[in-house]
């Protein structure tokens, strides 16, 4: 059987990033004295960073054609509109 070694992203490095970011998240949430509003912003930022790493490198979105990326990106503004408009609704 012949095997061909392809060049790919360093998946183990991405795993280390994800692990370190998770440790920072838990540490920031429980060990720090950051004001609540700032803490929420930091935690959401870290979560989005981790989610992007998974989408770009594990799901290979970074290497896919733009037409495919659009399929994944299209629901995001719709999701934003869904949340914001519901929040703006008067009781």
């Amino acid at each position: 059987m012949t095997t061909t070694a392809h060049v790919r992203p360093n998946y183990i490095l991405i795993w280390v990033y994800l692990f370190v970011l998770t440790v920072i998240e838990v540490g920031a949430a429980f060990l720090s004295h950051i004001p609540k509003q700032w803490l929420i912003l930091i935690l959401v930022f870290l979560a989005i960073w981790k989610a992007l790493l998974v989408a770009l490198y594990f799901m290979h979105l970074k290497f896919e054609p733009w037409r495919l990326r659009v399929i994944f990106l299209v629901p995001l503004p719709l999701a934003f509109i869904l949340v914001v408009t519901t929040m703006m609704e008067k009781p």
Partner: protein
Amino acid sequence: MTHATHTADLMRPPFPAEPGAGVYSNKLGMWVFLASDVMFFTALIGSYIILRFGMTEPWSAPGAVLNVPLTAFNTFLLICSSVSMVKAYAAIADGKKYFLRPVPGKILRDGGLKFWLLVTIICGAMFVGVQVFEYIKLFGHGFTPAGYREGSTLAEHALADPVKYGAATGAMYGSTFFTMTGFHGFHVTCGVISMLYLYFTKVLPEKYSAQDYRGIEVIGLYWHFVDLVWIILFTIVYLI
């Protein structure tokens, strides 16, 4: 990380692409499904945000009711399973159908598709197991989808410290928590069952090759998406 353009060329699989989208139909179908699943989880997470921040009464403090160290470990398990899944994909794309193979001059053996997919299945099953264990413990302490059960330990704690335990919002907390984590757990369970099916019907009989590994790529996309959703859920539900 390697050079993106070089990587992109080498990663293009040898499958017939559908005109228009530029990818094969199974993969396109999975991406369309994932796009719809984005909306599904947005509805759940959006509802949670609106309900939680619309409340005038305090919500339970992070870690007061939920076991964060246990869930952090579970998050780690799911991240590990995502890495093993992508390693399974890389292995079969390189034609490595085997389980483990010795590498001359190295102590560690080289893992093939059979090894990495099995690791993914085990990590996924462990994630579900830990979640079931967490649910049993929470029910035992009195945290249910209807809130804090009367006469339970948690109900007593909530009476003693209503701000920390969010006594007034317990029912909303319970219903949103179990709905979001329950639906995610259902997704993980479906993923584990699908991978088990693939493992016994396609991977062990060596039906995948470097020329055709579409099933692995498609189930991999689903699995990474489940991991991605959990990353968001873990932050919003457990840490904030």
